[in-house]
């Protein structure tokens, strides 16, 4: 079953109706021309929000730990004193740890999008459905 709208308000009305009728958002496909916070709030009332944040968290923490551990280990592996500083010069290594936190966090988040959003979607790369700027609700028939 497929519903197509050119008008956002009409689409939202319909969507709300369907959701209120007890249909799970997971059982339908909603296509939108652009992100929309109102719709998001509406749907997330019936569906848990994105799990992407955990990717960011784990990535960031890994980066931070890697940053400190790697810098410290390389300094100990071959001990060379520079400028009379201690081998574990944590203030200097904080810069590295910080940058790696950001880097790993960002890359993990990106990976999160690819994994959670099942991207890249090779089947849709070259022959997508053409909905232009319409709002679409597709309900997979089960009954």
């Amino acid at each position, binding site marked *: 079953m497929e519903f197509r709208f050119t008008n*956002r308000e009409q689409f939202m009305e319909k969507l709300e109706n369907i959701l209120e009728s007890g249909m799970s958002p997971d059982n339908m496909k909603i296509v939108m021309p652009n992100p929309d916070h109102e719709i998001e709030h509406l749907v997330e009332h019936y569906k848990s929000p994105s799990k992407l944040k955990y990717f960011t968290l784990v990535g960031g923490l890994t980066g931070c730990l890697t940053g400190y551990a790697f810098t410290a280990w390389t300094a100990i592996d071959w001990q060379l004193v520079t400028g009379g500083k201690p081998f574990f010069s944590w203030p200097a290594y904080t810069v590295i740890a910080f940058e790696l936190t950001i880097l790993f966090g960002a890359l993990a988040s990106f990976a999160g999008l690819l994994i959670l959003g099942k991207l890249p979607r090779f089947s*849709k790369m070259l022959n997508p459905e053409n909905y232009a700027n319409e709002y679409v609700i597709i309900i997979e028939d089960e009954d």
Partner: protein
Amino acid sequence: MSSHSTNVLGSNVPERDELYAYNYKAKLEEDVFAAVSKPTPLFYIALLTALGCVGIGATSWAIQIINGLGKAGIMNPVGWGVYITDFVFWVGIAHSGTLISAILFLFRAKFRNRFNRTAEAMTVFAVLTAGLFPLIHLGRVWFFYWLFPYPNQRHLWVNFKSPLVWDVFAVSTYLTVSVVFWYIGLVPDLAIARRIKESKIAKTLYGIFSLGWTGTFKEWQHYNQLYKFLAALATPLVLSVHSVVSWDFAMGVVYGWHTTIFAPYFVAGAIFSGCAMVITLMVPMRKMFRLERYIAIDDFEKLAKLLMLTGLIVSYAYIVELALALYVGKEGNVFEYEQFMYRLTGDYAWAYWTMILCNVISPLTLFVRKLRRNLIYLFVLSIPINIGMWFERFNIIVISLARDFDPYAFGYYTPTWIEWGITLGSFGWFFTFFLLFSKTIPVLPVTELKEEVD
């Protein structure tokens, strides 16, 4: 030119009917992709000019590699000259992009949507340009990979206490994150391009890069979260990158470098120059690509205000530096005092006063509302600001090194044609990328503008 119009589609479209948003989106797609269309002869002339500059730069670099760094003007005691100036300049340019897209995104400043695509592209290309200079200035560029901590049979690692290694990490992280951020914003637009473009090749290419984006709710849900997190990560990153660059100097013992205000001072300076560069690029682009409808004078005025703000911060930093040196005086710290007196009155005073004129005096004119709403004036003003910011870095690097501690080792540095050639080449390199960008990728963030109309 009229001021901001709520009726973006013009007079012949009915007001705010139920199809308004739908039509708006279609028209927006049409307008933006009209710009990403067949290039004009002017485009080819510009591209060839840019490539010519790249050629000059590449030749100069080749000469320098074959003969040695002596082909540049750097000497004892000025070990860094135009190259590091260029590096800091381009890293600075790279800053407004992520600032406009990330920080203003977090602050929900809608006007960012007019500039963020171009600004981010500028960021990526400017980092790509800046990244060349640490290589160019190396004595043995063929060993550049020694700067990266990779496992090797020699059991050697890099020195993580060196600000240059921080630089390596900061700049490459910045490049990676900027590319990811830019690309994430692009994916839905690429999906639109895949739909709109007619040629098979274009469809295929846009299709591949759009990752098979279909615009389902699930995709948008993750997308929104990702975009938010990336913005949140990129914001401290932006601040850190130019701080790290400033620490290249602030961690040194040289007077004129060794100061705690460098990090905020450099970040403000970077945003200042970055905004100026965005204006330099966007004013003509708005005209040529007929985007007047979507980018209003108000939007530029906001940029101009940002320029004023950062300009004042930079001016404040100049004053603090100078005032501290004068306050401690000859008795307090003769090295610092004489360094700043040398900047004001010495051999390079012309460079110092050029900087003051461009960065302190000229932005003050923006207090006049008429001027900051005049696009031609903004465009004209943005160029001296860019020049002024180049000189700021030149002054910091060259003047400080020319006279540091030991009077015997004072020297005077004059750049050579090799250095100017490579600098020219860097502009060519940047504009080559930018020109190619303007004809392949929607210069406005279509999806985000669509969101605004709902």
